[in-house]
C-alpha cells in the first residue's frame, strides 16, 4: 500500500515538475511548439479564434 502511495506521489511529482518546466521554457516564446518526432517539416497550427 505504501509503495502504491509512493508511486502515486512520484507520478504527481513528475507531472508537476514537467509542467513547471514546460511553463518555464514556453512562457515567453513566440515560436511553434516543440515537436520531437520524425524528419518531416513541421506545419504551423492555425490560431484558434477563442484563444
Amino acid at each position, binding site marked *: 500500500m505504501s*509503495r*502504491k502511495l*509512493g*508511486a*502515486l506521489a*512520484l*507520478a*504527481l511529482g*513528475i*507531472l508537476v*515538475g*514537467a*509542467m513547471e*518546466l*514546460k511553463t518555464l*521554457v514556453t512562457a*515567453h*516564446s*513566440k*515560436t*511553434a*511548439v*516543440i*515537436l*520531437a*518526432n*520524425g*524528419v*518531416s*517539416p*513541421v*506545419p*504551423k*497550427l*492555425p490560431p*484558434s*479564434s*477563442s*484563444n
Partner: protein
Amino acid sequence: MGAGVCFVTCSVLRASFLKYFFLNLYVIFALFADLLRQFVLRYYGLQSPEYIYAYYYTDCLLTIALFVAVISLASHVFAELNLARYVRFVAVLLLLGTAGFTYAVVVQSTERLATKFAAELSQNLYFVGLVLTYLLWGAVLKLHETRTRLVQMVLSLGLYFSAYAGSYALLNLAPNSEIVQYLGPILGCFLPISWALTIMRNSEEARLTPARLVAVPR
C-alpha cells in the same frame, strides 16, 4: 529513414528485437509516420489541413510510443529490484494525468479541439519524457547499472531530449534562421542512429561503469 531500418534490422539479426521491443516499435511507427507525412505533404502541401492533421496525430502517437519506450527502459533498470510493476503503475498514472491535464487546458478552446489536444498532449508528454529520462539517468548512476546497451540507450534519449530543448531555445533566439529550422528534422535521425550504433557495437553481455562518465569532485 535508413537509420530506422538499420536499427530494426540489427535488432532482429542480433536477437534483441523482443528485448527492446518498445524501442523497435517506436522506430517502426516513426518510419510509417514519415512515409504517411511525406505522402500527404506531396499531395496536399505544408499548410493544408490534411497535412496538419496527419502531422499532429502521428506526432501524438509517436510521443506516446516514445514515452512507452522510456518506461520500458526504466522497467529494465528496475527489474532486478522487482519494481517493474510499480514502474508500469507510475507510467499509467503519468499518461492518464498528462491526458487529463491537457484536456483541462484545451477544453477552453472550442475550435479544432481534437487537433489542439493532440499537439498539446504531444508537447506535454515530451516534457514528462524529458523529466523521466533524467530521473532514469539518476537511477542508472545510483544503482551502478553496468549493462552497456542500457546505459547508452538512456544516454541517447537524454541527449535527444536535451538537443530538442536546445534547438527550441535557438528557434526562439533566431526564428528566421533557416539553419535552425532544419535542426528539428536533423535531430529526428539522431535517436535511431545512436540506438543502431549501440546495438551494432555492443553485445548484450557488454558491461561498463557509468560512474566513470561523471566527474566526481575530490
